[in-house]
C-alpha cells in the first residue's frame, strides 16, 4: 500500500508545532497502525531524520499508552479499538491519513504525538481507591457480591485510562474516565464507606485539572476503545447528588 501521512511534529511543550507530510510506499495491509509508524521511523532514521515520537507499549490494547487522533478520530475509525489494534487493512491504498496528538489543555503535548496524561493519575490519587491497608482485608468470600453486580463493576473497571474520551469530547471533559472508576467502586460493597468522599474528591480534582464539563454529547462513548458506557456518567452525577444531599 502507498500512504500519504500528515503528521503533527512539535519539538516541545512550549514550541509551536506543524503538520509535516510523509509518504510510506510499501506498507502491508497486515501491519498494525503502529507497525506502519515503526516502518516510517526506520526509514527516517536511516536518512538521519528524527523519528516521530508516539506513546505505545503493550500493543495489545490494554495498557492505554497509545493515543493518536487519526483522521479526526481518537484511536482511528474502528469502534472499540485502540490504535495499537488498528490494522492497515482498514485503510485503502493511496489514502491520506492525518495523525495528530490528543488535544486537551489538561494533556500538554510533550513532543510530536506524545502528551502528558498525568492529570488522570492525580484524579485517581484524589479518591479512586478503597482505603485498605495491606494485611487488613477480611476473608474474600465474607462479602457476597451478585454475579451481575460484579460483571457490571467489571464493565466499568475495563477503562484503560487512555484519554480517548477527553480527546473526542468537544469540551475535553474527563467525565467518562472519572465516572468509570466512580461507578466501579459505587457498585461494589467494598467501595461503599468512602462513596461520597470519593466522588467529591475526584470531581474536584477533575475540575482543577481544567478538563471541561460534560454536555452529554456521547462522543466519548463513541470513541472509547473499551466501549465504556455513558450510563456511568449518569451514575457519577447521581453519586454526586447523593454525596451532597443524602450522606
Amino acid at each position, binding site marked *: 500500500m502507498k500512504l500519504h501521512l500528515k503528521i503533527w511534529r512539535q519539538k516541545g511543550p512550549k514550541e509551536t508545532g506543524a*503538520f509535516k507530510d510523509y509518504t510510506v510506499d510499501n506498507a502491508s495491509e497486515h501491519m498494525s497502525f503502529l507497525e506502519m509508524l515503526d516502518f516510517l521511523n526506520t526509514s527516517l532514521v536511516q536518512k538521519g531524520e528524527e523519528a516521530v515520537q508516539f506513546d505505545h507499549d503493550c500493543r495489545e490494547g490494554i495498557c492505554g499508552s497509545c493515543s493518536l487522533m487519526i*483522521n479526526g478520530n481518537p484511536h482511528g475509525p474502528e469502534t472499540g479499538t485502540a490504535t495499537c489494534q488498528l490494522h492497515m487493512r482498514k485503510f485503502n491504498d493511496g489514502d491520506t491519513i492525518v495523525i495528530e496528538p490528543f488535544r486537551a489543555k489538561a494533556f500538554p503535548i510533550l513532543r510530536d504525538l506524545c502528551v502528558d496524561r498525568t492529570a488522570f493519575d492525580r484524579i485517581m490519587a484524589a479518591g479512586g481507591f478503597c482505603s485498605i491497608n495491606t494485611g487488613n482485608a477480611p476473608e474474600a468470600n465474607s462479602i457476597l457480591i451478585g454475579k451481575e453486580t460484579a460483571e457490571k463493576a467489571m464493565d466499568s473497571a475495563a477503562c484503560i485510562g487512555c484519554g480517548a474520551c477527553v480527546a473526542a469530547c468537544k469540551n475535553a471533559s474527563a467525565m467518562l474516565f472519572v465516572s468509570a472508576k466512580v461507578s466501579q467502586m459505587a457498585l461494589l460493597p467494598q467501595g461503599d464507606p468512602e462513596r461520597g468522599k470519593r466522588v467529591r474528591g475526584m470531581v474536584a480534582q477533575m475540575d482543577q485539572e481544567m478538563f*471541561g464539563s460534560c454536555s452529554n454529547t456521547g462522543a466519548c462513548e463513541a470513541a472509547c476503545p473499551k466501549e465504556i458506557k455513558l450510563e456511568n456518567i449518569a*451514575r457519577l452525577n447521581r453519586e454526586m447528588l447523593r454525596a451532597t444531599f443524602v450522606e
Partner: protein
Amino acid sequence: MMKCKSFLTSSVGQKFLVAITGLGLSGFVLAHMLGNLLMFVGADAYNLYGHKLTSTPLIYVAEVGLIAFFLTHLGLTLKLTRENRTARPLTPEQLPSNPVKKASFASRSMALSGLMVFTFVILHLVTFKFGTYYETEVDGVKMRDLYRLVAEWFQKEWYAGFYLVCMVILFTHLSHGFSAAFQSLGLQSVHNRNIKRLGWAFAVIVGGGFFIQPLYMYLWGAP
C-alpha cells in the same frame, strides 16, 4: 452547607442546575404551546385564555421565576461553554479528515442553538408581549386582542418563515437537551432508549405544536 456549596461550584453541580432549569423551561414551552393551540378554537377563546392568565397576580411570581430560570440556564451555560472552549485547544489547521466517531449534530451545537433560541425569545417578547396593544371585548369584558396581533404578524411571509426556522432550532435544542437533562440529574443515561424516545417525543410535540401555528395563521388567520 459546605457540601452544598462545593457541589454547586463543581462542574457536575452546575450541570445539575442547567438540567433543572432546562427542564423547568421545557415545562414552560410545553404549557405555552398547549395554551396557544386555543388559536385553533377561535379568536375569543385565545384572547380569553390570555386575559385570564395575565389577570391573576400570580403571573408576576411566575414571570420572576421564569426569568430566574432563564438567566440561570443562560448564564451557567455561557460560563461552562467558555471554560470548555479553553479546555479544548482546536486543531490549528482545517484538515481533510472526516471523523466517524462523533456525537450528533444537535448535541454538538447546543450552545449555538441555545443562543439562537435566546435571541428569538427576546424578539418574540418585543413582537408580542410588548407589541401593539389592540383591544377587544369578549362577553362584555375588555381585554387585549392578542389574536389580531398574532394574525397580523403571521400574515407576513418573512415573519412566518423566520418563525418556522426558529422552531426548528428550538426542536434541535430540545431533542438533545430534554434527554440530556436526565443524565445530568443522574436519573438515566442519555443513551437509554426510553429516555431518548421521550426526549424526541417531547421535542416533536413542542416543536411541532409551535410549527403548525404560524402555518395555520398564514393560511386561515386572515380577518
